[in-house]
C-alpha cells in the first residue's frame, strides 16, 4: 500500500514539474535573445538593423565598423527573410525596436513620428551629398535619413550570346521581347526579370514617360503608355521566353552567371560577382523605352540610415549614425566598393572611388547619371504594394490592365488621403 502511494506521489511530482516547465519554457523564450547581445560595459547599448546583403563580407564589415565605435555597444540585427519591410515595421512597434535601421525614404514613417529628424547631423555636409539623395530624404525642410549607398538597377547580359543569336542591345520593350525570343534555347531562357517581376514596375512606368506620383502627389502612373507596357509584359510572360520560378531572385546574380538566362535585370551591387563568373563577357543596358514616346530608365535605389524616434536612445543613436555615416569616410568607401559595387552618395567619396572609374562600373555610373530616377519620399510601401498587385493581376494573371490599375488607384488614393489629406 505504502509502496504504491509512493509511486503515485512520484508520478504526480513529475507531472507537476512537467507542467511547470511547459509554462516556463515559452516565458523564458520571450525574454532571451532580443538581438541586443551581451554588454562589455562601455556605456550605452544600441541596436542596428539591416536586411541581409547578398554579397559576402557585408555583415562582417558592418559588425567591424560597429565594434570600432567606442561610445556605445552596437549590436547588429541581420534580417535574412525576403520581406525586410514587414519585419522592420512590425519590430518598430515593440520594445525590441532597433535604435537605428536601414530603409528607403518613405513619408509615412515621418508622419507617424517613427523616424527622427537628422537635419543637424546632415546639414553641415549637405553640399557633399548627391542633391537628389538629399531631396528624397527631405520633408518640410527637414532631413530624415542619411543615404549610405545608391544602387542603380539595370539589365546585365552576355554579349557573346547576343552575337551568336544576331541580337543587338534592345532600345525598346518590343526589341527586348524579340531578343528574348531569339536568345531562348532548350536550356536557356531569354530574359529574367525576377520571379515575381516586382522590381521592374517602376522602370516600366518611367520608360513609358509616366511617373509614380507627380509633383503635387497625385497619381501619375495611370496612362495609356503604362497600359500598353503591361500588355507587352503579359505577352512576354506567356511567351515561354521569360525565366520563371528560378531558385534565386532578381537581386542575386546566379540566374545569369549559371546560364539560366541570357539577360538578367539586377543591380550595380552584383557587378563584381557577375564579373567574377563571366569575365569580360558582360554588358549592361538600361530598362528600354516601354513605348516609342518614352525614354530608357534606371531605378536609383539604395539604402539609408534612419534613427528610431521612439527608441530610448535617440541622441546616442544619432551620434552613432553621424560617426559612421557622416564622419568615417574610409568605412563609407569600404562599404560602397569592397563587397558589392554601390555608388557612394557623397561626391568626395565618389571622386575617390577608383574602382568605379573605368570599364563596366564606369558605364554603370553613367547609366545612373543619365537615366536615373531616385526614390520619391511620398511613394510609400502601401502604394508600392498596390503596384505589385497590378503586376500580379494583369501580367502573371491574365487580367485587364485597366481594371488592375483602377484597383491600384483605389489603394493609392486611400493612402494619399491618409498622408496628405
Amino acid at each position, binding site marked *: 500500500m505504502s509502496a504504491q502511494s509512493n509511486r503515485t506521489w512520484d508520478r504526480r511530482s513529475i507531472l*507537476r514539474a512537467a507542467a511547470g516547465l511547459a509554462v516556463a519554457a515559452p516565458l523564458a523564450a520571450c525574454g532571451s535573445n532580443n538581438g541586443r547581445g551581451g554588454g562589455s560595459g562601455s556605456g550605452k547599448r544600441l541596436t542596428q538593423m539591416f536586411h541581409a546583403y547578398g554579397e559576402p563580407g557585408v555583415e562582417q564589415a558592418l559588425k567591424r565598423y560597429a565594434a570600432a565605435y567606442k561610445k556605445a555597444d552596437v549590436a547588429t540585427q541581420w534580417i535574412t527573410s525576403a520581406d525586410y519591410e514587414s519585419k522592420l515595421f512590425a519590430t518598430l512597434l515593440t520594445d525590441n525596436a532597433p535604435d537605428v535601421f536601414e530603409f528607403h525614404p518613405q513619408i509615412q514613417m515621418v508622419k507617424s513620428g517613427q523616424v527622427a529628424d537628422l537635419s543637424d547631423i546632415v546639414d553641415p555636409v549637405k553640399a557633399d551629398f548627391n542633391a537628389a539623395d538629399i531631396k528624397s530624404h527631405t520633408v518640410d525642410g527637414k532631413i530624415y535619413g542619411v543615404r549610405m549607398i545608391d544602387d542603380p538597377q539595370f539589365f546585365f547580359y552576355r554579349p557573346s550570346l547576343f552575337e551568336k543569336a544576331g541580337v543587338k542591345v534592345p532600345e525598346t520593350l518590343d526589341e527586348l521581347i524579340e531578343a528574348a525570343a531569339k536568345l531562348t534555347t532548350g536550356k536557356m531562357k531569354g530574359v529574367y526579370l525576377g520571379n515575381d517581376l516586382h522590381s521592374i514596375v517602376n522602370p516600366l512606368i518611367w520608360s513609358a514617360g509616366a511617373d509614380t506620383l507627380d509633383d503635387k502627389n497625385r497619381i501619375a502612373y495611370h496612362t495609356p503608355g503604362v497600359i500598353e507596357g503591361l500588355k507587352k509584359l503579359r505577352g512576354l510572360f506567356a511567351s515561354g521566353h521569360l525565366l520563371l520560378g528560378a531558385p534565386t531572385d532578381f537581386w542575386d546574380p546566379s540566374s545569369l552567371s549559371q546560364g539560366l538566362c541570357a539577360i538578367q535585370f539586377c543591380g550595380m551591387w552584383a557587378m563584381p560577382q557577375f564579373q567574377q563568373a563571366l569575365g569580360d563577357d558582360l554588358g549592361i543596358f538600361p530598362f528600354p523605352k516601354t513605348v516609342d514616346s518614352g525614354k530608357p530608365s534606371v531605378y536609383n535605389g539604395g539604402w539609408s540610415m534612419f534613427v528610431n524616434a521612439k527608441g530610448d536612445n535617440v541622441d546616442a543613436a544619432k551620434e552613432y549614425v553621424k560617426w559612421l555615416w557622416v564622419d568615417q569616410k574610409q568605412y563609407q568607401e569600404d562599404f560602397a566598393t569592397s563587397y558589392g559595387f554601390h555608388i557612394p552618395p557623397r561626391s568626395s567619396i565618389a571622386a575617390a572611388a577608383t574602382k568605379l572609374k573605368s570599364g563596366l562600373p564606369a558605364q554603370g555610373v553613367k547609366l545612373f547619371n543619365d537615366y536615373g530616377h531616385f526614390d520619391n519620399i511620398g511613394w510609400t510601401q502601401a502604394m508600392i504594394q498596390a503596384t505589385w498587385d497590378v503586376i500580379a493581376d494583369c501580367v502573371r494573371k491574365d487580367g485587364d490592365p485597366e481594371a488592375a490599375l483602377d484597383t491600384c488607384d483605389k489603394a493609392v488614393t486611400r493612402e494619399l488621403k491618409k498622408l496628405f489629406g
Partner: protein
Amino acid sequence: MSTTTKPALTGPAPAKAAPARTWRGLRGSRTFNFWLFVSPFLAGLIIFIYVPIGWSVYLSFFDARFTVTPSNFIGFDNYTYMLTDPKFVHSLGTFTVFAAFIVPTTWAVSLGLALLVNRLRFMRAFFRSVFFLPTACSYVAASLIWKMSLFSGVRFGLMNTVLGWFGIDDIAWLASPDPPWYWLVIVSARLWLQSGFYMILFLAALQNIPAELYEAAAIDGARPGWQTFRHITLPQLRATSTAVVLLLLVAAYQAFDEFYNLLDKTTWGRPPLVELYYTALGTEQDYGAGSAGAVILTALIVVVTLFQGRIMGFGRGEESK
C-alpha cells in the same frame, strides 16, 4: 485498556501533528490540487490566448494603424471594411478550395498508409517511423525545398526533370495562377508533412479493432479485402475518422507557412491567415482591420466546428462508434 490508551494518544498528538496536518490537509484538499494542476496551464492560456484574443476584439473597434494602443474609436467600421473587402472575402474562398483538396486527400493517404503498415509482418517499426518522420519537419523548410528544388521552374527542378524525360516543356509551377499549378505544390507539400501523423492515429485505431470481429465476419462469409474493410474496418474507425477530419479542418484553417513561403507577391492563393497577416503586419500595418478580420474568422471557425460536431457526433463518446 482502550480507555487508558485513548487520552495517551490524543494528548501529545496535536502539538506534533498540527503543522503536518495542514500540509497533508492541503495536499488532500481537492480544491488545492485542482488549482495546483490547472493554474500553470490556465496562466499560460490566459496570457497567451485569452489576453491576445481580448486585445484583438478591442483593437477591432479602433483605427489602429501603426499602433497597438489606439485612441480613435470607430465602432464597426473595420468590420464593414473587412466584410466588403474583396481580398478578405476571396481568402475565405481560397480556404474552402484548400480544405476541399487537403482534407479528403490527407484522410485517404494516411488511412491507406496505416492499412499498409498495419499489415506488414517485418520492419513495421521502420516503416512507421519513415512515414512519421516528415511530421518533425518544419513547414518553412519543407516549403523552401518544394519551391527551390522539387517544383522550381527551371529545367533542373525535380518535377521538370521528370517531365523532360517525356518531352514536356518546363513548367513554372508557382509563377502564374493559370493553370493553377500552385495548388499541386501546396497540397503535395502539406500532404507529405502531415500524413504520417494522421497515419499514427489510424494505426492506433486499427490495432484497437478486436480480432474477433474479423473472425466472426469470416465465419459469416465476408470476403477479406474490400468487403471486410467496408463493413468492419471503416465503421470501427468512425470515431477516429471524425477526429481526424476535425483536426484536418482546423489545421487547414490555420494554414499559413506554406502559402506565405511558396507564393510571393501574388493576389491569389491567400488563405485567411495570410490575408490577415498582410493586412495587419504588412505594409499597411492596419491592426484594427486585421483584428476585425480575425474576430470574423474566429466566429466562423466556432460556428463550423459546432455544426460539424453536431452532424458527425464528435465528442459524444462511445456511442458514436
